[in-house]
Every structure is written in structure tokens, then in C-alpha cells.
């Protein structure tokens, strides 16, 4: 039994030293700082600066302007990682259709409450996504909120009810439409003589998305990025959850059929 104690002691040592390295040794006790760093100062200063049109993002919200303007290419590759994970899940469940059988769902009281609240929640999600350049929010937030709406409908009514409105192919199509929209918004400046992921006019290229539409501040491309990203995130997460919750027998049958073909 000595080896068991040795293993326990070594696990404890690794845990303590690793968490020390991650937490305390890397940060120290110097947080919080008195002032923010100069990089953050530059970002906050330049996020909304109509008097400096060649460097600004024309959005009062610094986080969204970092995500989609100052560091747009970072976010693009993070979106790629996200859809890599979603494609992996879809591949693991290949050949499986979510069942279209409409179950009984929850009680009538829960159904009525869900029927009243679901449009309200969708409106909240749309507001979070489309006001992302003015108030806290954005494409990722709105997309995650809309995905939970689909999940509430799935649990309250049934999986078949959701599938009858949003089939697997339609969710895939929406997700691809969101991705194509992001790509189009990123590439249109390149066609018209600008650079990739350009928002406002720079010194090298005069192309610029409109910062005001009809007198309202829309922050150029940020509005379109938020719209398409929320569409893509909502459709992708709903798709993977629909596949994950598909009934046991359906998955079992699909997997068994595959083995028969191989033999």
C-alpha cells in the first residue's frame, strides 16, 4: 500500500505547485492596479473618437470595438476554433437525424408560460445582439441567449416540435449563412480598394462603412458583424444540442447499421 500513498502525495504536490504557478506566482498581490495599462488607455481613447477618423472604431463600447475592429483577425480565428468544435460534434453524430416524433412535453401551465416568454426572450436576445455597439452585449452574447431559447422550447414542448420548425439541414444552413456573412463583411473592403477587416477610412485606403445610418450611430461594420455572429452562434449551438439530445434508440440504430455495412 505504500505506492498508493506515494501516488496520493505526488498528485497533491502537482496540484499545489501547478495552482501556485497559475494563480499566485504569476499574479502576485499587486492587483488591483491604481491605473490601467497604456495599451488599455489607447483602446479606450480610440474606441469613440470622431476627431481622429483614421484610427477610431466609432463605437462607444470598447469591448466590442476590440473584438471586431482592433483585434478582428483574432476573433475570426477564434470563430474558426468554435466552428471546428461544432463540426467535430456533427461528425461524431453523422448519419443521425433528430427524431421528428412530437412528445407530450411538460404540463399545460409550463407550455403557456413558455409560449408567452419565448417571444419576449427572443426580443431581448435581438436587443442584446443589435445594440452591441452601444451598450454591453454583442454577437456572442445575443447568440448564446437565443440558443437557450431554443433549448427551453425543446424541453417544454418536445424535440420533435423544435425539429418540425428548425430541422438539422436548416440549422446548418443558418450557421453557414452567418459565417458567409462574416466573410462577406470582412472581404467587401478588399474588393473596393481597402484592406481586410477594415471598418473606418484609413490613411492608405479611403473605403469606409457608414458610421451613421439615418442619424443613428451604427459604428460601421460592427453592427453587421454582431448580426451575423449571433446568427451563427445561435444556430451552431442549437444544432449540437439537438444532436446531443437525440434519443438513445435512434443513435443506437444508426451506429449498428454502420457496423453491418462494414462487415
Amino acid at each position, binding site marked *: 500500500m505504500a505506492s498508493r500513498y506515494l501516488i496520493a502525495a505526488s498528485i497533491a504536490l502537482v496540484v499545489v505547485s501547478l495552482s501556485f504557478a497559475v494563480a499566485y506566482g504569476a499574479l502576485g498581490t499587486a492587483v488591483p492596479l491604481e491605473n490601467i495599462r497604456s495599451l488599455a488607455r489607447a483602446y479606450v481613447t480610440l474606441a469613440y473618437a470622431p476627431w481622429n477618423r483614421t484610427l477610431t472604431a466609432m463605437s462607444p463600447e470598447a469591448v466590442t470595438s476590440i473584438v471586431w475592429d482592433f483585434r478582428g483577425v483574432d476573433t475570426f480565428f477564434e470563430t474558426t476554433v468554435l466552428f471546428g468544435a461544432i463540426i467535430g460534434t456533427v461528425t461524431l453524430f453523422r448519419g443521425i437525424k433528430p427524431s421528428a416524433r412530437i412528445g407530450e412535453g411538460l404540463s399545460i401551465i409550463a407550455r403557456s408560460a413558455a409560449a408567452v416568454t419565448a417571444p419576449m426572450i427572443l426580443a431581448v436576445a435581438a436587443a442584446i445582439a443589435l445594440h452591441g455597439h452601444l451598450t454591453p452585449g454583442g454577437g456572442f452574447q445575443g447568440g448564446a441567449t437565443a440558443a*437557450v431559447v431554443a433549448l427551453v422550447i425543446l424541453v417544454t414542448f418536445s424535440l420533435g416540435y423544435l425539429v418540425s420548425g428548425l430541422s438539422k439541414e436548416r440549422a446548418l444552413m443558418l450557421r453557414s449563412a452567418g459565417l458567409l456573412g462574416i466573410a462577406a463583411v470582412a472581404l467587401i473592403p478588399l474588393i473596393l480598394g481597402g484592406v481586410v477587416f477594415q471598418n473606418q477610412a484609413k490613411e492608405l485606403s479611403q473605403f469606409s462603412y457608414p458610421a451613421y445610418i439615418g442619424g443613428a450611430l451604427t459604428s460601421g461594420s460592427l453592427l453587421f458583424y454582431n448580426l451575423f455572429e449571433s446568427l451563427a452562434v445561435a444556430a451552431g449551438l442549437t444544432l449540437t444540442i439537438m444532436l446531443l439530445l437525440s434519443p438513445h434508440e435512434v443513435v443506437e440504430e444508426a451506429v449498428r447499421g454502420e457496423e453491418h455495412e462494414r462487415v
Partner: protein
Amino acid sequence: MIEPVNVALGLAALSAVLSVIATYLAVSDRDLLRALIFSALQSTAYAIIFLVLMAPDIVLVYVPVAVGIYPAVVLALIKRVGRFEGGEGGE
């Protein structure tokens, strides 16, 4: 006199202590359903920490993910593999 700084940082410290309790119970409990509930409690405490540290963007994305979607995924998993750690497989 109650200063706002003490109220805000005190709330952050209180939810940090709450998150330690919830994390310990979530990791040590043998019932996976109870571990999931304690994990949701820990997520709520973290949401309060994010809020007091002035990150409303993170709260708006973290709460749907950690309280709304993640319990559904783990519950679907528990439904298949059995509720108790170390027991026989479910179904």
C-alpha cells in the same frame, strides 16, 4: 457609515468564499446530480464576481452558457451514464 466601496468589494469577497464552498462540494460529492447543482451555484457566484469587477459583457455571455446550456448537456450525459459515481452504468 456604509461606504459603497466596502459594500461592493465585500460582496465580491463573500461570493468568492461561496464559490470555494460550492466548488469543494461539487468536486467531493459522489452524486453527480448534486455536483451539477453545486456547479450551478458556483457559476452564479462567479457571475456576481464578474459583475462587481465591472464586466457586464462577460456576465451577459457567461450566464447563458454556464447556467443555461451547460446543465442541459451534463444532465443529458448523466441520464445515459448513471447518476452515481462508481456505480453501474445507467440504462
